[in-house]
């Protein structure tokens, strides 16, 4: 190579390098999530995790879980400074902070805005969570900074419905009215970050809300990017184009990412509970011995070893641990011999065949393949009907699967999980159906009584009874709990320990820093 050519090549390389990698300013936090696009950023409408992830940084509730925490035991004031409860527990009065402004030019937040927002959350016309607020009989502004909520009957958690999650996120009336149907594309809240821009299939850009009542955020901009390809999302994190990434549900991802320099890897809560729902309405699963056989054939420890011990832990009940009212249960031990004996006793010495509608979503399919192999040891043959994910959701609700493998996290109160999965009113293919795939009804009385029980201890006892009965009847076989894998560059500095967040993204607020 001649000197001249060498010079030419070096110049070209320098030019390309100069053009090269995005050098994001220190003030911009780049976040990447798996997914293609945003659906809506209206907190009362949004149901997709990706949408909730970004809503998390824009809104406040009357109360909130402590920063970095998701347990309802940590509830503390947010927009409300304090609150009082009437003796019958049915009237709640909230005194609001007086220094809160709506983002943009929508003025100060007053009690009128809170009333508007909660009524909006309670209306099926404007909210996907209207059902949660059915007991909110009257919501009134007593003065500019006092809100009163009257309940028709006691409900398991009032404060849980007033944290900035789903319907609890407070929207300013002027913005809600001015933007109407377009609110989901131009959300306006009171939180540390304000919506600035949305680029279809690319990103949502948030900017610091300099008027935030707890102080102006130190991070000035958040680029929330939709990067659908797992591999290139990892590469973007590796190249430094992304500071905070929502990872893959794989132990190997956690291990590999933890090897990168200056990187923190953490599994955040709340944990999803994965279980097998057994359709008790039809043979052979209507026989308790067959369900017991399945429960004894499942090796929970083996599943946790397969999915990884950083990401998952063994399930302990039919609701996730850490939920208000969760009570660990004695789950059937792994014993394939006993499983075979039970099957023989039930009249199936040659084993049984069960139809399972199964999604092809890789993380769920691989787990079920392991379960299939475990059950086969005991002579229980799971015959998969493999379908894409939307078809899976449709067919399990049409009662077409004898065994339904489902993973879920909910507002961390026992009532919601128990009601949706085990209350007979939620049985699929009924007018009030939700996700009771097993046709379970053994916990009905306790679940109903707990819902309106005012004494917290009695309420917990009722929930514990419901869990015990559901486990004994084996409506479902709990498998494991799985958290949210996240990784971030150590430039991102959180001011408090992170356990997780209800909206499944780490809380980024006025205290979060981006070091140079």
């Amino acid at each position, binding site marked *: 190579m001649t000197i001249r050519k060498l010079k030419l090549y070096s110049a070209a390389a320098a030019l390309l390098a100069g053009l*090269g990698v995005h050098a994001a300013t220190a003030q911009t936090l780049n976040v990447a999530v798996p997914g293609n696009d945003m659906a809506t950023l209206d907190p009362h409408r949004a149901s*997709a995790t990706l949408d909730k992830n970004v809503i998390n940084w824009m809104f406040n509730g009357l109360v909130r879980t402590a920063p970095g925490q998701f347990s309802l035991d940590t509830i503390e004031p947010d927009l409300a400074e304090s609150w009082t409860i009437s003796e019958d527990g049915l009237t709640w009065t909230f005194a609001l902070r007086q220094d809160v402004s709506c983002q943009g030019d929508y003025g100060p937040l007053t009690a009128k805005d809170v009333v508007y927002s909660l009524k909006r959350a309670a209306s*099926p016309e404007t909210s996907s969570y209207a059902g949660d607020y059915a007991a909110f009989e009257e919501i009134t502004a007593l003065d500019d900074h006092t809100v009163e909520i009257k309940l028709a009957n006691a409900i398991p958690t009032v404060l849980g419905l007033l944290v900035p999650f789903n319907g609890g996120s407070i929207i300013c009336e002027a913005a809600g009215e001015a933007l109407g149907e377009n609110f989901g594309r131009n959300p306006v809240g009171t939180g540390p970050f304000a919506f600035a821009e949305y680029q279809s*299939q690319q990103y949502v850009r948030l900017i610091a809300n300099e008027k935030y009542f707890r102080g102006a955020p130190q991070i000035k901009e958040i680029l929330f990017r939709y990067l659908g390809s797992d591999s290139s999302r990892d590469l*973007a994190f590796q190249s430094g184009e992304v500071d905070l990434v929502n990872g893959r549900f794989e132990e190997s991802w956690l291990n590999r990412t933890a090897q990168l320099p200056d990187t923190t890897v953490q599994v955040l809560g709340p944990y999803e509970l994965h279980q097998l729902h057994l359709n008790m309405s039809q043979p052979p699963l209507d026989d308790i011995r067959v369900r017991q056989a399945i429960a004894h054939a499942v090796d929970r420890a083996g599943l946790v070893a397969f999915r990884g011990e950083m990401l998952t832990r063994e399930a302990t009940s039919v609701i996730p641990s850490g939920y208000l009212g969760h009570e660990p249960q004695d789950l059937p031990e792994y014993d394939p011999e006993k499983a075979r004996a039970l099957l023989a006793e039930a009249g199936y010495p040659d084993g049984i065949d069960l139809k399972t509608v199964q999604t092809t979503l890789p993380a769920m399919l691989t787990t079920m393949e392991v379960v299939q192999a475990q059950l086969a040891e005991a002579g229980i043959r799971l015959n998969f009907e493999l379908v894409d994910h939307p078809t899976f959701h449709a067919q399990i609700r049409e009662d077409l699967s004898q065994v339904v493998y489902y993973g879920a996290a909910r507002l961390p109160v026992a009532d919601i999980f128990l009601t949706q999965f085990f209350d007979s009113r939620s049985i699929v293919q009924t007018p009030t159906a939700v996700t009771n795939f097993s046709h379970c009804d053994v916990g009905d009385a306790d679940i109903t009584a707990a819902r309106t029980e005012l004494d917290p201890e009695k309420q917990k006892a009722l929930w514990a009874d419901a869990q015990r009965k559901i486990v004994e009847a084996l409506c479902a076989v709990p498998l494991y709990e799985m958290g949210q894998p996240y990784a971030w560059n150590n430039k991102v500095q959180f001011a408090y320990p992170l356990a997780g967040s209800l909206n499944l993204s780490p809380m980024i607020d006025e205290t979060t820093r981006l070091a140079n």
Partner: protein
Amino acid sequence: MLGFVLRRLGFAVVTLFAVLTLVFFVIRVLPGDPTVVILGDQASAQSIALLRERIGLDRPIWLQYVQFLGGALRGDWGTSLVSGRPVIGEILNVLPHTLELTAFALVLGVAMGLPAGIWAAVNRNRIPDYVTRIVSLLGLSAPAFVSGIVLLLVFAIVLRWFPVISSGQSTDLWGKLRDLTLPALNLALIMAAYVTRVTRSSMLEVLSQDYVRTAMAKGASGTAVVLRHALRNCLIPVVTVVGLYLGILIGNSVLTEIVFNRPGLGKLIVGALNQRDYTMLQGMMVIYTLIVVLVNLATDLVYGLVDPRVQYK
């Protein structure tokens, strides 16, 4: 020629109508509907029923079809069932990104494939021919998501010449080129392989013709013979492949768009299919059909430019 174009456009309308009808019914036969996506998996049967009523999914399918056709004729493609945003707006938002990517890929594909094919043909059964054939076979066999990751690893992670996120945000020319180069190269690889192989075989055939031998005999240089006499005559099959392939490129862009994190039609259609977003899928099918029909028409017209013997009746 005008009559030819008009007649072809007439056929296009019939094709569009047939595709629309087919798509309308096929996506509704698929199990699953958008309501669970919109309301989330905690929705009760009641709220799902309410929503089905609100967005009209409870009406008889023929009525939905008539209403849809009526809207389509008035230019109203409806709003996305999932996001509530106008379908046409969503498509037009991302269409330029896909067109830009495919156009650049097309140029790169031809720019790489044509010379390689000629080079292989004139060096038939010698080392350059073998090398070209093996490389083009590799190009044909490597799926876009594998070649894409390899390109990213080499050029974005090791050499750091290009960004991993080619999101097409830059407004200046350099920025645009930087965002576009790797994805376009990735998309162009398969096309270049096709073009190479077709050019090679077409050129070999032309080179065996009498007039080429005559040109050689009168003493013209090898380069002049190939470029001035043979090239234009070997282009007809190449134009056919390029035309056919443009439609395929637009369809194939989905993997490249996802791997390189670019917005585009491919990402939109995958999302719409996963969410059973009927209105969006319908709108997208119209766009895809239109593109394929127009590209085919353009290909037919290019024949005339390349070969004066082609006449349009």
